[in-house]
């Protein structure tokens, strides 16, 4: 046992320093959420959280994020399949385009959405003539959230499809299964974990969306003021207690998402 303990001079220092820095890092990342919980005016919580404006914001957030997830699934799943299974010219370009909304600063996404879908936008002007105005609407808020959140779903699903591979699907085909049956009984179950993880990340990202929403959809209680926008307005107008309480609700939801995703966020 003595041989295990023998260390070369200086070798023990490196892990200790790394450990210390790691502790600082954990403190840095964990302190803000903990401070929120510590700072919260718990006594006033029940009363403040049952304020109609707060309930409106939370309800709207749930509606908008779920709509954004639905839109991401409808548009994103076929796209993920195309990227994983089909080969077409420009595939790498398409993949890069899909990732852009993930790295774009959200307010830039908002300006882009206005340029595209605003009343005088590239596509928005035509929609306006058809009577469909997206800015300042709940649909617009869902669209903004979907724009920034869909890539999370597409990327996760594409990875899942690639790692699941075609082998089982090919085997099912040689055994005589039709395309729909293969999709339902072979493909979907094999990508279910990736799909679930991607959907959870997509939904959580949509829930937290702020910059694109406030720029494109605006800020109106009951129609476009999602929870993050409500927090912002409370902060801007001198109501830090309200801001902290709504932030805690959002934090609790985020923690629940992380717990549900445990084990899936790190590479296998």
């Amino acid at each position, binding site marked *: 046992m003595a041989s295990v303990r023998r260390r070369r001079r200086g070798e023990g*220092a*490196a892990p200790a*320093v790394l450990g210390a820095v790691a502790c600082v890092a954990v403190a840095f990342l964990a302190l803000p959420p903990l401070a929120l919980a510590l700072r919260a005016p718990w006594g006033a919580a029940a009363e403040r959280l049952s304020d109609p404006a707060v309930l409106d914001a939370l309800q709207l957030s749930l509606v908008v994020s779920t709509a954004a997830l639905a839109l991401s699934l409808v548009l994103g799943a076929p796209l993920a399949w195309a990227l994983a299974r089909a080969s077409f010219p420009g595939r790498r370009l398409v993949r890069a385009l899909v990732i852009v909304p993930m790295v774009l600063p959200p307010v830039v996404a908002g300006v882009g959405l*206005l340029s595209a879908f*605003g*009343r*005088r936008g590239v596509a928005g002007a035509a929609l306006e003539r058809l009577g469909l*105005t997206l*800015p*300042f609407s709940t649909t617009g808020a869902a669209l903004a959230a979907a724009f920034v959140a869909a890539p999370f779903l597409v990327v996760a699903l594409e990875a899942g499809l690639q790692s699941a591979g075609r082998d089982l699907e090919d085997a099912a085909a040689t055994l005589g299964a039709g395309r729909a049956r293969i999709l339902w009984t072979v493909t979907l179950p094999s990508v279910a974990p990736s799909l679930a993880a991607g959907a959870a990340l997509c939904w959580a990202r949509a829930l937290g969306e702020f910059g694109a929403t*406030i720029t494109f959809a*605006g*800020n*109106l*209680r009951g*129609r*476009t*003021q999602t929870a993050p926008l409500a927090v*912002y*307005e409370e*902060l*801007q*107008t*001198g109501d*830090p207690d309200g801001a902290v309480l709504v932030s805690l609700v959002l934090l609790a939801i985020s923690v629940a998402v992380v717990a549900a995703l445990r084990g899936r966020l790190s590479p296998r």
Partner: protein
Amino acid sequence: MRRVVAALALGAVVGSCGPPAGREVVVLAASSLTEAFTDLGRRFERAHPGTTVTLAFGSSAELAVQIDGGAPADVFASADPALLRRLGGRVRGEPVRVATNRLVVVTPRDDPAGVARAADVARPGVALVLAAPKVPAGRYARAALARLGVLAGAERNVVSNEADVKAVVTKVVLGEAHAGVCYATDVTPALRALELPRRAQVPIAYPVAALSDDPGARSFVSYVASARGRAVLEDHGFGPP
């Protein structure tokens, strides 16, 4: 390894020393004062070589929250005297009123919704943007619309409560909203402005106060309140205090 740590420590000590000499006056001003105070800041710097005027603009409500939270501001120029009063102990000396303003209804140049008079903003179908109710511009706008007798109809038309008055201007300039209510000083060539009847106007005053004992702070406040400073504000469309 030890040499790396020593170098980092030395760098941190040296880096934390501020720039030599040169005074800095940090001014937090209401967003409607953007152009006027940028001008005043430049003139003050020319008159006081070695001094830098650092300006930050936002809604007066937001700035008051920041100051309350300990923001290192030397001067606060508010669009609402009440917000300045609420800061209480942080204000040094007497606040000085330096200007007044008035509200206008603005539409895009091509007036897509046919807003012919200010009261038309209450007509069904007009997409109206206002500043948020707790922001001075939003408070004044709602008070003016109430005096005009059209607040209920206008509130139904509000499509967004913006964080400050400049955001209202942006949404109207972009054509996303049919109309907005902002200050007369915010009007740009891209906008069409409609005056409000006199009975609808609300008093809008801009008090400026020093927040620190820095001589530069008092000096800047005096400059803005001087005849020269007030002339610059009037050049930018503000009314006399």
